[in-house]
């Protein structure tokens, strides 16, 4: 993996995960969606975009998206997308320490298996 690829991956993983954590915080602020009629869904989405965390999250995710586009122009999608799964560890840690989620042993084992799978994909 080249330095160029590594930098892009770092932006994809940390920018993407940080953005998703911020978006999660915004959606938790909105509260659970119970009704799935298009009108209610639209109202929920509009409400979500009035929360500052949503815009912060989307900004980070946009940065991550363009890094993904650049990386996809250099490497195969079946390599790029699985490698970005390293963000699962960052995501589980963020969920636990930033959002106060209870990450039980079984969930951690699942996350680690996902990472093991990523290593196998990289070796391949």
């Amino acid at each position: 993996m080249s330095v160029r690829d590594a930098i892009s991956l770092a932006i994809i993983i940390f920018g993407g995960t940080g953005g998703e954590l911020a978006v999660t915080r915004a959606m938790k602020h909105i509260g659970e969606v119970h009704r799935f009629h298009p009108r209610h869904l639209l109202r929920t989405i509009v409400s979500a975009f009035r929360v500052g965390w949503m815009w912060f999250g989307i900004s980070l995710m946009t940065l991550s998206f363009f890094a993904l586009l650049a990386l996809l122009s250099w490497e195969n999608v079946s390599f790029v997308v699985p490698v970005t799964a390293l963000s699962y560890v960052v995501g589980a840690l963020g969920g636990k320490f930033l959002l106060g989620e209870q990450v039980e042993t079984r969930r951690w084992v699942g996350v680690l298996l996902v990472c093991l799978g990523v290593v196998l994909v990289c070796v391949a």
Partner: protein
Amino acid sequence: MSFSHRLHGKTIFLIGLMAFFGPLGDVLLRKGMKQIGAVSNWRPDALFATFDRTFHTGAIWLGISSLLLFFIAYLLVLSWADYSYVQPASATGYLVVAVLGYLILGEVIPWMRWIGVLVIFIGVVLVGGTPPRTTEEG
């Protein structure tokens, strides 16, 4: 239907939508970027020209549309479920992206990568067995 089953049911349905539209969007973006060619010139005018070509490529727009549907499903599920649940559970998309990469783009996928995808899937099943929500609502 119990509250727990209902919560699991709607969570799994939306994660299923994410697992389909996310990988489809990635594959379409890759298809579009292959049409444009590798980004090799980093001068601002060249980057702008690439950026312009990107948004005049049909596959890129289809990819963005697919990712938009993914994002809506993602926002909805995050309104009640844990991020540390949704994020790994949506990794079922890796199986989908490997299959789509093989079928649509004709990418050669080594058997070791298929094993990796299978291990990721087992991890997802384990995560899927935990409660989708561990925090208080609101």
